[in-house]
């Protein structure tokens, strides 16, 4: 059975190779090849899952050693896979949601002449992400990690003819590199201190390692997680990444990429358990990001960017939970899975809306679409209810547990973290309701003659090319797009209850991550009730603002905070002033030092060597008598020196 593990990675990898090397001949069937191979990966995953369920909880871990990559004494790098409950969860999520997105893309990318290439990249993305979660050591994980970075770069910049897409891809890649440095340094530290980077030995060795070393590794891992999972301070790439085709956004936000950071932290749980300071840093990052993303999500008029803010915020929840230690790991993963369902559904829904609206992304030019797109409306609506934590739906179960766990952290920290998480829930309800109302309810603003709005910062170039010239005719999307949305909607509705009731998910994951029941300072019921209460408040506020009043087509100027939030809370301005300007100053001064000092020394040495050479060369005057004198002198010195050596 364990021999099947490699096939999980190989199937999509094969797809990528075939599609990218196959050339034009495969244009007609390329999307089917890609989809079938992604689905094959899911089927293999399901078989392995069934097999795993048949075993006892402690015997479920499977390993497959493929080959020794670098077999050097003292440096053992293996290509080996490890499939346990944690990896299994990710495998099913990645290949399952990934396959649905493949199906959806068949319809969505129908008119794109580079569709075959797109599917090749999608397959590559899946393969890299599966490699990441299946690796049994940090080095192989790093290979997958970089593969994810590459695939995301290719996909975000898929419409590279748009300068904004090319820039966004570059930005995502560069910001991710910062995080990648963290991971590579962490791996080097592990090798330096433990002599290995395989999960088993490293995580066992944490017991007898000093807290300082664990904190160092933990902080580096956190940096890595911040990059891939778009957490503050490396969050800036996520919003721009919306330049990619919408299925890519769905894939990045739901199944792959941003979940990698959460996986890394949960997988390295033993390291963080031994380093409370690093854990605290993780929770702080999570808490800050969940507010940051939520606030940004409130201000965006671009439907995809609003959802991107939402993702940032939801991943913040997961990171926060992962930072809580054993009381949070399981819930981090549980929220990750449920979020995978409803966020994928929401993005696919957004894509469906755009599909019907001539690729318009500005929600101020939507309105009243529920009549025209019933399936999209219902599936998007169910995803909406799930994400705001409507009782009974997926998000309710997973988010509620995280808020409980945050309170259960104890002490002032617990109150602060719990409060932030609760506040985040309210804001989530607010901005998601806003999206919902602006898109599907209210008057049909797209019927107004569309006017250019230069003041609007988030108008897309694509919107300008399509939206300005013709009034859109909203229509429901083809079934290849709606069916995945329906499937995901089922997940959004039922997954949470399935996992949460009877602690099923806890029992499933506990052997890998460990689990401790937290004891919140107030009763769990109180937490649940307050969660529901803040959710209702958020929805109510949004309704008062966007449901009862008409939505202006041109965005009002807004308060200072709104304007800041529209600019992603000035993240790019901050990066520009601090990092870009600072970097420029640093490079300029380094160039100065290089020119004057380094080049001075180098050129000076070269010049002096040349001068010396020229002078010594004159000794070679061509006269045999001079040469003989030189030899005679040399011999005399040689003899004298030899005698002198004996004398001293």
């Amino acid at each position: 059975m364990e021999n099947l593990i490699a096939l999980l990675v190989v199937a999509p990898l094969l797809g990528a190779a075939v599609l990218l090397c196959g050339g034009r001949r495969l244009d007609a069937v390329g999307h089917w090849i890609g989809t079938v191979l992604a689905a094959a990966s899911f089927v293999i995953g399901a078989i392995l899952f069934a097999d795993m369920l048949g075993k006892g909880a402690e015997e479920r871990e499977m390993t497959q050693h493929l080959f020794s990559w670098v077999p050097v004494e003292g440096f053992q790098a293996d290509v080996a896979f490890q499939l346990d409950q944690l990896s299994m969860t990710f495998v099913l999520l990645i290949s399952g949601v990934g396959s649905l997105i493949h199906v959806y893309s068949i319809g969505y990318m129908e008119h794109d002449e580079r569709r075959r290439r797109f599917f090749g990249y999608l397959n590559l993305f899946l393969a890299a992400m599966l490699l990441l979660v299946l690796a049994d050591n940090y080095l192989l994980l790093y290979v997958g990690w970089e593969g994810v970075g590459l695939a995301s770069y290719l996909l975000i910049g898929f419409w590279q003819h748009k300068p904004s897409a090319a820039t966004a891809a570059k930005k995502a890649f560069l910001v991710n590199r910062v995080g990648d440095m963290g991971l590579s340094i962490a791996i080097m530290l592990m090798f330096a201190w433990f002599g290995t980077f395989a999960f088993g030995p490293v995580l066992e060795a944490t017991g007898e390692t000093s807290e300082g070393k664990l904190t160092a590794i933990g902080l580096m891992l956190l940096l890595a997680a911040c990059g891939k999972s778009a957490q503050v301070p490396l969050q800036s790439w996520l919003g721009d990444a919306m330049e990619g085709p919408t299925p890519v956004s769905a894939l990045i936000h739901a199944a792959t990429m941003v979940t990698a950071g959460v996986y890394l932290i949960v997988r390295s749980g033993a390291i963080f358990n031994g380093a409370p300071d690093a854990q605290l840093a993780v929770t702080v990052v999570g808490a800050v990001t969940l507010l940051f993303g939520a606030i940004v999500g409130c201000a965006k008029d671009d439907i995809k960017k609003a959802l991107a803010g939402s993702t940032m915020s939801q991943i913040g929840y997961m990171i926060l939970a992962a930072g809580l230690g054993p009381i949070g790991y399981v819930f981090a993963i549980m929220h990750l899975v449920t979020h995978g369902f409803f966020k994928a559904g929401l993005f696919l829904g957004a894509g469906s809306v755009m599909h019907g609206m001539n690729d318009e992304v500005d929600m101020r030019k939507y309105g009243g679409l529920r009549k025209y797109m019933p399936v999209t409306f219902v599936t998007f609506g169910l995803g909406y209810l799930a994400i705001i934590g409507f009782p009974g739906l997926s998000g309710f179960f997973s988010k509620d547990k995280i808020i409980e766990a945050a309170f259960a952290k104890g002490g002032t920290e617990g109150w602060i973290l719990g409060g932030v998480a609760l506040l985040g829930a309210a804001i989530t309800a607010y901005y998601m309701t806003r999206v919902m109302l602006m898109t599907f309810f209210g008057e049909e603003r797209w019927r107004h003659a569309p006017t250019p709005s230069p003041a609007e910062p988030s108008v897309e170039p694509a919107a300008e090319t399509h939206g300005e010239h013709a009034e859109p005719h909203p229509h429901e999307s083809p079934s290849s797009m709606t069916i995945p949305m329906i499937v995901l909607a089922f997940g959004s509705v039922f997954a949470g209850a399935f996992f949460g009731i009877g602690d099923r998910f806890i029992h499933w994951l506990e052997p890998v991550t460990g689990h401790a029941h937290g004891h919140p300072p107030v009763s769990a019921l109180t937490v649940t009730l307050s969660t529901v209460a803040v959710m209702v408040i958020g929805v109510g506020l949004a309704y008062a603002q966007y449901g009862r009043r008409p939505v202006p087509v041109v965005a009002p100027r807004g308060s200072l905070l709104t304007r800041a939030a529209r600019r992603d809370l000035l993240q790019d301005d901050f990066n520009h002033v601090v990092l870009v300007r600072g970097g420029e100053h640093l490079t300029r001064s380094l160039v100065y030092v290089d020119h004057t000092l380094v080049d001075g020394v180098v050129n000076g040495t070269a010049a002096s060597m040349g001068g010396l050479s020229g002078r010594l060369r004159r000794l070679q005057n061509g006269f045999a008598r001079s040469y003989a004198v030189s030899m005679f002198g040399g011999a005399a010195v040689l003899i004298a020196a030899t005698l002198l050596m004996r004398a001293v």
Partner: protein
Amino acid sequence: MSAVAVHSLWTMAADPIDKIDAPKIEYGQLSPTLIVIGAAIIGVLIEAFVPRKSRYYAQVFLSIVSLAAAFAAVIALATRGYGTTKAGIVAMGAIAVDGPALFLQGTILLAGLLGVFTFAERRLDPVAHGNQVDSFAAQAASVPGSDSEKAAVKAGFTTTEVFPLLLFAIGGMLLFPAANDLLTLFIALEVFSLPLYLLCAVARRKRIMSQEAAVKYFLLGAFASAFTLFGIALLYGYAGSVSYATIAQVVDGSIENVTPALAETMGNDALLLIGAAMLVMGLLFKVGAVPFHMWTPDVYQGAPTPVTGFMAAATKVAAFGALLRLLYVVLPGLSWDWRPVMWAVAIVTMLGGAIVAITQTDIKRLLAYSSIAHAGFILAGVIATSADGISSVLFYLGAYSFVTIGAFAVVTLVRDAGGEATHLSKWAGLGRRSPLVAAVFAVFLLAFAGIPLTSGFAGKFAVFKAAAEGGAGAIVVVGVISSAIAAFFYIRVIVLMFFSEPKPEGPTVAVPSPLTMTAIAFGVVVTLVLGVAPQYFLDLAGQAGVFVR
């Protein structure tokens, strides 16, 4: 005279003869040297008896066959264990047959074989009066520019004597690193030096320069030989013997039957130290170490290029072989005395060669200074005084000699109206015009510079490692600095070839016969194989690196 008296004379004469032991000569173990010397003598006979038109073919055939046979003999001896288990001293103590001797003899023979190929090249020079000509003067004895010279050229004469001369030189070189007493050492030195002096003088073009080079080489070589001979005399005076083994015993005081005369001189260390220093100086002259290097650039530049290539490779191999044996077999007891001095020599040689090479404008002189710097690098391995030191020097010599022959062979290809275009400015843009030749030369230059994946890197790494392990860290530091300096002028030539605009009236690259092509191709292959997979050859040198005492 009566029959009885006659009989008694007969018996009287016979009696003592019975008692003299005939010298025991192990012909089998000496066969490589004997084959080459024998072939050289036959070559002289060919000059005397074979018609002029056929001499060239007879000489080339004889040289190639004899060198190949001698090489086969070396291989046969090595595979039968004469390099390791059966190593011994033969010819009444005069010659050693051991690992280093066989390894170096094999290297010299291969280098000699490639040398014959380049000597025999006849397609590079334009056809003169209907005769294909080689790099050598039509008639070496004719005065340059005289009528007799013109007549000789017109008659299609060629100096086929170069082949027996080459064979004599190779014979001497084979003996040189194997010599096991001081007299044999000196004889071998002269046997290979004298033909080389002559070979330097017989260039077809720039004859005055060639003859000047030969005279300089001869004068300075004789001067150095005088030092060597005087050193030998002093050592004999000190130890009462010319045998390496006996001198070594006297030096470390382990000799058993001390005669009164010997006891008197044994105490006189001045004899020993001065003698050793002078002897070593003679060998340093041959390897071209600073300050005994002054002849090198002039001679390398003036000599016919095939001779330069052969000389640069094989002389260095033979001379370093002899130096190794001298220092490791005869004078190990003195290593505290000679090591610091050799340190200094190695350092000034590495730096001197590398620094002066920077401002050279002639490719042959550039390679000459490069060979001086390389002599310094090899010295760094010599002074390691360890088994690793021996094997690394053996490896370096093998690697270096094929790069050198190949590089000089490429130099013969780049020509203009005046013969070889050796001025560097004429090499500008060669990579555009003849990418293959320029690329091959670049490979050799990179090997000289010691860039990884070439034999130069493996060799340099081996000697520096041996030197560092022998406690000569300072040498390694200087060696690496010199390598960096040297890299400058090697890379500069590459830049010149590939990144400069070709000159309109630049040189042409002649298409050589398969002979030169073989020599160059062999050089490239050895350079790359030793660079990519050096381990087998390092092991081989390691096995060979034990001197018999």
